């Protein structure tokens, strides 16, 4: 919670001292970047700004301490490009800031050099992070306007506990010239791995000094692109590993990363007697593997609050299981650590999986320790099986693991949150560490069933009861929102969603069942009255048979460049009965729809049976991702769904 101070404390504000006179000349490297003629390709005609130069140099000392020097020159091409001309550098206890300089050139050609006292320092915020020691030094340079140039240079210590750096040469705006250099001591090694770009060979411009260079790197512009993966999962990048020892490649490098993390995290699980006692108490006498892990998992999900406190290496290394248990709070890696520790106490082996919630960011071809989340893998005893074990992977060792996210309190053990499905992660298993593909749950394991019985009056009023039953990981998001909502907010939220289906309505009653009972389906039941639902047109009464809910995605007509990414696989089914008013007969119903696109099927039908209009449909999504060239197919499907959802049945007054 944000707690306001009693009163904002009172101090005298001192005006900025007058800037002392100093010659304002940009450095040569800035001037050279500015002087180089730039012609952006047509595809970049809407670029808001452009990096004329981005240049990173990582210098590793013989003692392993490293320093990063970063330089950037940005030109503002459109007024809204000002947002890219805000120099800044992060620093922390382990990434001490050594220097920061900012220059700018106004559109009138005037050159400026900013003074130290003109910079600001701000704390960095992260979702759920109560405290971290990361700060940023930022600047608002003069002349940062249309046609203006902003340049900055920073030097900061590279964290001593890391031996991998990342060169993100592709960004939201184009880059004319991007350079990455690493200088390692004699006898040291470096290995570069590439993501979404063919490997580029470096030039060794001096012994141990390697230089990679890119020119005219296109932007990743995902604004207004529907169903698009995270830009971080699309942008090209290079990870460079450096070490005094030879650096393995491929699977061996993944193993090395996992092994290193195990050394960092594993001690944090040890020596907690309270944890062990609690775990044994939770597991009870049950000998069934699933029952035992479910008890511990439930405890993690229901009792351990998400609170992030990260200092220095603490952004990678978990707090001790003992502390997490004592405080009953922790962040993702803390929760995974406590889980590992508790399961260990009841004789079940578990470990960490380092992942990223932006599906596609972690790539098996790009061994790297970068990611934004930690979850757990629980080793399944040989020969054991249980229908609840849905999110299972088999490692190269032949061991089977149940993948579980203890941070997500709304997806039960056995399943996997949708944001993780189909991604990759580092299974931390000592020398057997490896990259694993996270499971994708089948469409029949993530189901939404909407059913309703309505009665239509001759004046067009529709009244009826609706039941929506959700099962599978997709229901986790709704369970979360409902849990965090009051009764009033739940009602208002449901009313808000019914706006999409009715122009006028009254929600008479509503009920939500099994919100936190993750083993049970999430059930929403409500009773709604919608005056003027059916529209009168002379002797006709016009009814939309698809009364509630939509399966359509909002697409646009822009040329598709990026792949298509769905949130999850799943099955959505509707079954609605509308009893028509006496004195009316069904005159026309929409044609049935049946589409099979391979990656999805959609079937819908409206039938008149006696005095009832019955609408049924089923939409099954079978693939998580499509190529950009399948966009036309998807649009065709979505067009058919939209048409079906808005189609009209005609009732006619009997003569």
């Amino acid at each position: 919670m944000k707690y306001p101070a009693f009163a904002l404390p009172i101090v005298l504000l001192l005006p900025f001292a007058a800037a002392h006179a100093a010659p304002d000349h940009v450095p040569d490297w800035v001037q050279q970047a500015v002087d180089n003629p730039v012609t952006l390709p047509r595809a970049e005609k809407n670029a808001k700004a452009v990096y004329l130069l981005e240049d990173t140099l990582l210098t590793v000392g013989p003692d392993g301490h490293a320093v990063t020097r970063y330089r950037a020159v940005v030109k503002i091409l459109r007024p809204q490009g000002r947002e890219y001309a805000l120099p800044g550098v992060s620093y922390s206890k382990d990434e001490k800031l050594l220097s920061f300089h900012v220059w700018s050139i106004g559109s009138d050609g005037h050159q400026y050099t900013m003074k130290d006292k003109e910079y600001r320092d701000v704390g960095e915020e992260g979702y759920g992070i109560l405290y971290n020691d990361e700060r940023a030094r930022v600047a608002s340079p003069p002349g940062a306007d249309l046609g203006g140039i902003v340049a900055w240079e920073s030097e900061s210590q590279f964290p001593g506990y890391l031996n991998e750096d990342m060169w993100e040469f592709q960004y939201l705006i184009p880059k004319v010239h991007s350079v990455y250099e690493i200088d390692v001591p004699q006898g040291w090694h470096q290995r570069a791995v590439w993501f979404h770009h063919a490997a580029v060979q470096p030039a060794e411009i001096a012994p141990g000094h390697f230089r990679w260079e890119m020119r005219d790197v296109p932007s990743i512009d995902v604004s207004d692109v529907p169903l698009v993966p995270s830009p971080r999962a699309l942008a090209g990048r290079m990870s460079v590993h450096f070490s005094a020892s030879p650096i393995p490649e491929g699977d061996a490098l993944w193993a090395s990363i996992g092994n290193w993390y195990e050394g960092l995290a594993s001690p944090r699980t040890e020596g907690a007697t309270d944890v062990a006692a609690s775990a044994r108490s939770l597991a009870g006498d049950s000998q069934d593997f699933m029952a035992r892990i479910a008890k511990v998992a439930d405890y993690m999900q229901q009792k351990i609050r998400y609170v992030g406190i990260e200092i220095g290496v603490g952004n990678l290394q978990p707090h001790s299981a003992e502390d997490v248990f004592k405080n009953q709070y922790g962040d993702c890696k803390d929760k995974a650590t406590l889980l590992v520790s508790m399961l260990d106490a009841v004789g079940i082996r578990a470990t960490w999986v380092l992942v990223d919630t932006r599906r596609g960011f972690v790539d098996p071809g790009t061994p790297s320790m970068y990611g934004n989340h930690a979850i757990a893998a629980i080793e399944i005893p040989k020969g054991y099986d249980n229908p609840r074990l849905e999110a299972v992977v088999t490692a190269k060792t032949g061991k089977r693991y149940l993948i579980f996210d203890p941070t997500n309190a709304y997806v039960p053990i056995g399943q996997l949150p949708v944001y993780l499905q189909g991604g990759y992660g580092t299974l931390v298993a000592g020398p057997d560490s490896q990259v694993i593909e996270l499971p994708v749950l089948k469409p029949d394991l993530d189901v939404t069933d909407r059913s309703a019985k309505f009665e239509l009056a001759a004046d067009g009023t529709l009244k009826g009861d609706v039941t929506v039953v959700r099962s599978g990981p997709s229901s986790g998001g709704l369970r979360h929102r409902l849990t965090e909502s009051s009764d009033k907010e739940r009602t208002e939220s449901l009313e808000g969603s019914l706006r999409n289906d009715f122009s006028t309505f009254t929600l008479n009653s509503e009920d939500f069942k099994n919100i936190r009972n993750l083993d049970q389906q999430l059930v929403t039941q409500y009773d709604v009255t919608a005056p003027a639902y059916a529209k009168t047109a002379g002797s006709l009464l016009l009814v939309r048979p698809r009364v509630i809910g939509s399966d359509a995605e909002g697409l646009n007509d822009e040329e598709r460049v990026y792949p298509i990414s769905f949130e999850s696989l799943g099955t959505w089914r509707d079954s609605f009965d509308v009893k028509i008013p006496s004195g009316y007969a069904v005159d026309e119903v929409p044609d049935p729809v049946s589409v099979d696109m391979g990656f999805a099927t959609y079937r819908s039908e409206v039938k008149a049976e006696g005095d009832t209009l019955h609408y049924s449909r089923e939409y099954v999504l079978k693939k998580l991702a499509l190529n950009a060239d399948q966009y036309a197919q998807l649009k065709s499907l979505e067009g058919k769904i939209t048409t079906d959802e808005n189609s009209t049945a005609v009732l006619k007054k009997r003569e």
Partner: protein
Amino acid sequence: MLTALRRSVCVSFLLFASFPALAAPTWTQPTPEELKMTADPAAPNAPAVYLFREETVDDKLHFHSLYARIKVLTEKGKDYADVEIPYEAHGFTIRNVEGRTIHSDGTIVPFTGRPMDKLLMKSGDRKVMEKVFSMPDVQVGSIIEYRYVLAYDDNLLSSPEWYVQQPIYVHKAHYHFIPFDMSGSRYVTTRDSQGHEDVASRLLYFQHLPHDAKVTEGFNGFDLAVDDIEALPDEPFMPPMHSLSYRVLFYYSPFTDGVQYWKTEGKYWSKNVDHFATPSDKLKSAVSQMVAPGDTDEQKLQKIYAAVMKLENTSFTRTHTAEENKAEGLRVKTADDIWEQKRGYDDQIARLFLAMVRAAGMKAYAMAVTNRDESLFNAGYLSWRQMDDEIVIVNAGGKEEYFDPGQRYCEFGKLSWKHTETAGIRQTDNGTEITTTPGLSYKDNATRRYADIQLDPDGKVHGDIRILFAGAQALRWRHAALRNDEEEVKKDFEDELQRVVPPGITVKTDHFVGLNDYTTALMVMANISGTMGTATGKRVFLPGSFFEAGEKPRFPETTRETPIDLNYASDVADQVTIKLPANMTVESTPQDTDIPVQQLADYVEKCRIAGNSINYGRAMLIGTDLFYAKEYTTLRDFYQKASAHDQEPLVLKVGPMPVATTATTSVKPQ
């Protein structure tokens, strides 16, 4: 704002009182009822409630202390376990953080963690930190109990601001304030928002409290006890209700009361304004060149306003740094400088307009207003920080007119809606006074939407859209164009329109007319294409209202606690023509409709068939910007009925395409 320094108070004698060694306070023993409470009948939807909250301020000993007991009722309520206390780093510290969590079974888990200091912002000599800590083992049903002390240097005072109404329900709260002793040789200096230093001789306070609560003053300071305080409301379309929350605000003041405060502060402000807006010879010369001797006051005003509107208003582009101004040899001391450099921020430009009008020989006054989109002016709250922007009042031909030159491209003689019906301080012939600005009529905020649509036999449509905006909407888009380029604004406009037109339709903005011309309505031309409506074997159903087909009902919630703020009255009228293909005829159209809400709103819709065209007209008029909570049902009903009518379809019969009766000439390829 031209000046926005913060209220500051300094003790002029260095006091040698040190922070006291407080006796270790005891915790409160929870009652069995508190422990077993799972929901609170007094706050049925609350995630958590304050069982008790106490703020104690001792300006003699230079500390504030807070003690809180919070009952967690839901998962969401666990958020209250994370405590974040922002404070100024220079001169202030947070100390003595203590706490404990009590489970519903009575188990106590003491807080043994280490509170951490997090940097929020450091700029120049100013540094704002935040003390953060998280309470241990907090579960639904827990009682969180914590306390801390904010201590400050001996040469500083910090009179309290008690915000009695909190985001969650408060069962009981107690506040106590021991002010600094200003008797004898001790005195307090204050610096107001205008930069004036003065000796504070009194302690004033403003209170807005429930009718049964009152601050009492005794030998040992000020005291307040309150019970059962509702949580701050949070509803969509709500006026800035935080301005009306229960509170008590104390001030060390050189003034005897609020009347004297506003009079004196108004005088300082007015003097600043007059100094800046001096009708200098330079401005007189400039004005004499832009107006003709025979011009009426209105004509002079129009010309001056037009000249001022041409200047770059950096409030809508970018603030230029002192370095830039220095490099350009610019300085800003008076309106002359703004005129000379052709740019300034909103209040500077307003003052330039004021100066030029005065230079033209007219009586003109500045007015500082509270922006109604953010807060409401409260005369009992003795702070100039309430003032956001400045506007100008001109006496033209014996009648006072209001101008908003600081809002670039605001229509001549009109105010931006956020400056309407709001209070503030204005200059008068005899000083200053608190007054209220005029409102806007629905006629001032007119929107006219035209669509000319051709329906093809295959169900595809294409056509043109023309939309004219006056008033608030025109100003919104013009300001957007100042902040971004036209391409971006076209796209934003397109996205906004796309959301309301029928599904299947694609909108492309073609161009704007009058984006930089406040004297005319802003016109947007757009093209549409795609498909519209649905079909069965015999019929085609088109949406009855093209511009509202995708719009959702505005007020789905059935209940309402706070007034409804629509920002401004409005008048939206549509004319849509749909040309039908030869194989389609009209089977039925929506019935003509009028949904009036007396004095407040009206909705009219009519549909006519002319040959093979359908002409459809719709008008929605909202006559006021603010509705009382008791009018919510009426308002909701109005919008729902209008929305229901907007969804009435046009029903077309589909027949075979007529056979061409005249021979056509085919051209064979050569």
